[in-house]
């Protein structure tokens, strides 16, 4: 792979800096000069200072394109200063600038296409590299997800026993070909539980205690490993990662968050923490894993690896692939990326996401990690009709889901804030261990919490058939009627027992998840919230079913249920409930419904799911403003400008801009400051960029230069160019300075952004916020009567919004 394609390109095209229109040659020279000259001459009329130089400069310009395009063009083609166009850690990217850079690069490639065959091939490679990159991302994501699924299911069963003939098989796989007629709780003679390994019997009090102990000890071991690996190698691997991914996709740099070590540790830690039986899922972190894969692979393609805005296109596609493999729902993944995580989502990215999700789902499906021909453990296939009347309980489930979700969000936020500000935060590993021990001790006695959460969800979703021997299906059925295999029946004692256990499981899961989400291990919350909802839904469903059985002659049920058919399916209620809680927690709507119906393969349940998701979102929005991810973004103070919120205040740009009154704006003049002056300015102030003006007196704006670029350019010039010393004048113009005495000037026009977005000081903040959101600005310059007045950065906007909402404006993180 070529490391510095831009540099090479720069040597190939010396001097002639192409503009945006450089492909079209007739634009560059004659026509252009007059066009540009007009505003310049206007300026001469107004000002007397600096005007003279500008006219001379204009005369000396080779092509007269002192238009903004030069700055980007120059940045691309002429600069051999390494690192220009990159960003520092915890900085916000400038979408406009990056996209313009890419456009320049693209034009350059198109222009060179005719030159030689090699250039033609290079152009072709450039054109398809986006698709190739998402293809690779899809392949890798599918494989990694398959590995995590297999590893986690094996290690989860390791807590219960082992398959001595083939240790790599989990319990179900171990009993795969066993032909034993009794199948109590899935055990078979090949699978040995730990007491059996120690020579005890399978049943009995002693065996129970040994199993219990093994369960706790192994859970503790896995959790300790997970927490210490995260702490040792990649602290960024902890948590679910979706709030951070959202922030990164909105244009923030967190170096190392999507790196190699984070990827490895997140995968391994995820397997370990899921197997530890903690109340967490592996679906949310899949998004982070997929994005890390996308980031690593994008370095193979300089077009994406070296341009942060373009890289986010790949990351959006990767996020789609992550959800696609997490739920086996490719379309749901694309919509999730669109609705929940992505910020900048052009149609091109939509198609790439679609392709990426497709490939990832296909790969995972061919790995077949669960042996059920699907990519998730809890895939169920439903084809039962639902009665129109059932919409009422479905909406009721939506309301319950919204309430549970709000309780969860509030409690979890409270706990996370407590962890952040109290001494608890100093003992991350101890906290994980304590939570694990408590979870294991409480979870083991209850069979519904003892089993893997995905299995529990599967159990709750599935229909009671002949193959389901759980207590949950203990109905007083007789098998004499030939026509219907399963008919509606009275609940047996097993169902009553199961309901009590499920209620206990619900309470336990809710409380444990509150304490678990946010611990310093990889943990997601899709699965726990799906599980909470499924439990509630199943209980409501059983209740409805029994109502229909008892009052089958009632007018409500008489239409469908009179024949003795199983007209009400508790599994469907479980599904709707799961969607409701997940929808309440994450505030997803469209993507959630699509994910759920892809999980069940039944298009006819879209309406119930939509009703529940909507009801849950309304209740959630009424009780608490934010979804869990937005709440965590706010807790951490990430600079995330939510494009869904509206800015409703009446402030003006002048109120928000820096500097405030009585402060001076640090500016750089275009041709009168020396290197020493600029270095002193850089030392005194901490701004990330400086406006360049014609002169301090006039304050007419020339452009904007970034601190990082200035630093790099000065350091580079001192190292490379002869004669540059402290007294050298720094020139942001393209002509020569009037005086020729003294050391040679340092020409920095190429790092100058000559097209900064400007607004006037009377612009309403509503417009400014909209510009920041829609254009992805990093900063905008405020002018008054054409003179530079101040700067508004993204951080200022975020602070202002916080201030307006009566929150602490200092909680916004970093730059």
């Amino acid at each position: 792979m070529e490391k510095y394609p831009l540099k090479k390109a720069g040597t190939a095209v010396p001097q002639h800096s192409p503009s945006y229109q450089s492909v079209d040659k007739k634009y560059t020279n004659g026509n252009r000069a007059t066009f540009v000259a007009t505003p310049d001459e206007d300026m001469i009329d107004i000002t007397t200072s600096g005007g003279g130089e500008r006219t001379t400069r204009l005369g000396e310009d080779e092509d007269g394109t002192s238009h903004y395009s030069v700055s980007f063009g120059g940045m691309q083609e002429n600069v051999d200063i390494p690192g220009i166009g990159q960003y520092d850690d915890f900085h916000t990217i400038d979408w406009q600038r990056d996209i313009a850079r890419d456009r320049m690069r693209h034009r350059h490639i198109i222009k060179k296409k005719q030159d030689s065959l090699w250039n033609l091939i290079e152009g072709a490679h450039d054109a398809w590299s986006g698709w190739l990159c998402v293809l690779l991302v899809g392949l890798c994501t599918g494989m990694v997800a398959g590995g995590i699924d297999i590893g986690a299911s094996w290690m989860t069963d390791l807590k219960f026993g082992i398959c001595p003939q083939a240790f790599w098989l989990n319990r179900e796989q171990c009993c795969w070909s066993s032909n034993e007629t009794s199948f109590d709780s899935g055990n078979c003679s090949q699978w040995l539980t730990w007491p059996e390994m120690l020579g005890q019997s399978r049943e009995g009090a002693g065996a129970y205690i040994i199993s219990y102990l093994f369960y706790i000890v192994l859970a503790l071991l896995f959790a300790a490993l997970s927490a210490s690996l995260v702490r040792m190698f990649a602290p960024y691997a902890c948590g679910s990662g979706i709030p951070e991914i959202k922030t990164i996709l909105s244009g923030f740099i967190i170096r190392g968050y999507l790196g190699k070590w984070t990827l490895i540790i997140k995968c391994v830690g995820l397997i370990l923490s899921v197997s530890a039986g903690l109340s967490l899922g592996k679906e949310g972190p899949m998004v982070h894993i997929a994005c890390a894969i996308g980031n690593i692979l994008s370095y193979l393609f300089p077009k994406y690896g070296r341009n942060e805005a373009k890289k986010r296109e790949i990351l959006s596609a990767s996020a789609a692939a992550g959800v696609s493999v997490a739920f086996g729902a490719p379309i749901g993944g694309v919509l999730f990326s669109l609705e929940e995580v992505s910020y900048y989502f052009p149609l091109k990215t939509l198609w790439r996401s679609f392709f990426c999700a497709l490939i990832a789902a296909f790969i995972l499906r061919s790995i077949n990690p669960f042996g059920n021909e699907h990519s998730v453990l809890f895939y169920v296939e439903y084809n039962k009709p639902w009665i129109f009347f059932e919409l009422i309980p479905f909406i009721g489930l939506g309301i319950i889901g919204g309430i549970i979700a709000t309780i969860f969000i509030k409690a979890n936020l409270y706990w996370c804030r407590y962890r952040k500000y109290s001494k608890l935060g100093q003992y991350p590993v101890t906290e994980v261990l304590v939570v694990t021990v408590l979870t294991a001790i409480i979870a083991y006695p209850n069979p519904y919490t003892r089993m893997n959460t995905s299995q529990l969800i599967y159990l709750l979703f599935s229909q009671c058939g002949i193959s389901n021997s759980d207590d949950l299906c203990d109905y007083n059925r007789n098998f004499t009627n030939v026509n219907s295999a399963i008919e509606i029946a009275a609940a047996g004692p097993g169902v009553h027992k199961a309901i009590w256990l499920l209620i206990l499981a619900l309470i336990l899961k809710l409380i444990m998840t509150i304490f678990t989400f946010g611990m310093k291990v990889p943990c997601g919350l899709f699965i726990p919230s799906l599980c909470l909802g499924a439990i509630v839904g199943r209980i409501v469903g059983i209740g409805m079913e029994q109502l229909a059985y008892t009052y089958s002659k009632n007018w409500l049920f008489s239409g469908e249920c009179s024949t003795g058919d199983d007209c009400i399916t508790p599994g469907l209620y479980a599904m709707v409930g799961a969607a409701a809680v997940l929808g309440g927690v994450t505030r997803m709507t469209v993507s959630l419904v699509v994910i759920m119906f892809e999980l069940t393969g039944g298009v006819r349940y879209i309406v119930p799911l939509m009703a529940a998701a909507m009801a849950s979102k309304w209740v959630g929005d009424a009780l608490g403003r934010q979804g869990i991810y937005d709440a965590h973004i706010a807790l951490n103070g990430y600079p995330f400008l939510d494009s869904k919120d509206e800015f409703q205040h009446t402030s003006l740009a002048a109120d928000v801009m820096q500097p405030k009154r009585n402060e001076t704006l640090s500016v750089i003049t275009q041709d009168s400051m020396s290197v020493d002056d600029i270095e002193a300015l850089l030392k005194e102030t901490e701004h990330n960029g400086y406006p360049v003006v014609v002169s301090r007196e006039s304050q007419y704006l020339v452009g904007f230069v970034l601190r990082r670029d200035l630093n790099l350019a000065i350091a580079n010039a001192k190292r490379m160019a002869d004669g540059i010393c402290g007294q050298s004048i720094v020139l942001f113009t393209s002509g020569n300075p009037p005086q020729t005495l003294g050391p040679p000037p340092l020409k920095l026009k190429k790092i100058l952004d000559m097209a900064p977005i400007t607004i006037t000081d009377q612009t309403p903040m509503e417009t400014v916020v909209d510009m920041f959101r829609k254009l992805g600005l990093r900063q905008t310059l405020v002018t008054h009567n054409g003179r530079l007045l101040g700067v508004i950065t993204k951080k200022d906007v975020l602070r202002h919004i916080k201030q307006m909402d009566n929150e602490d404006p200092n909680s916004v993180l970093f730059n």
Partner: protein
Amino acid sequence: MREIITFIAISCALFALTQAQSYDDKRCKCICPSISSVTNSTETSHMARIMYITNVPPKQCNCDGVILPRIGRELQGKEQEFCPRCECKHENRNTGIIKVVVIIVIWVISILVIYMAFLIILDPLLNKRIKGSYQEHTNEDDEASTAGPMYHNMSLRGNVLNRVGHQQDKWKKQVKEQRRNIYDRHTMLN
């Protein structure tokens, strides 16, 4: 590090492929209620079930193909009643992939644990160099390029070990900073 892992993965895969498959990868699983439910004999239990697992082609994975050849005689002509209650499912799996994946997982975890133990116990003893103050870590390529000439010289003079050591130090610094952000200052990922 990565080369080692790749090598191990490949060797494990080869090892796995050479092993004979002791488990079938296809099955047809049928679950039926006990025969007594149709033969009108004394009702034993609702929960009693029979399970049949055979290896037949997917098309034959149904009551006629699996159940009747075995117990057709006992049913005494009540096949029409018995069969609708049976659930047959054809399933596939790939034990080879499972084996390779689980072995890789075990390997990766053990390597990481060993490396962690090394970093905790041995490294402080071996490595007593005083670390310079932290510089904010930047893009990987970027850092390599800004430190380009100097770094190049060093790698010419030094050997591979030196370069690995340099990379390791850089990585350690990054992790240290991440740890500071998350565990000490609690500015991120709360």
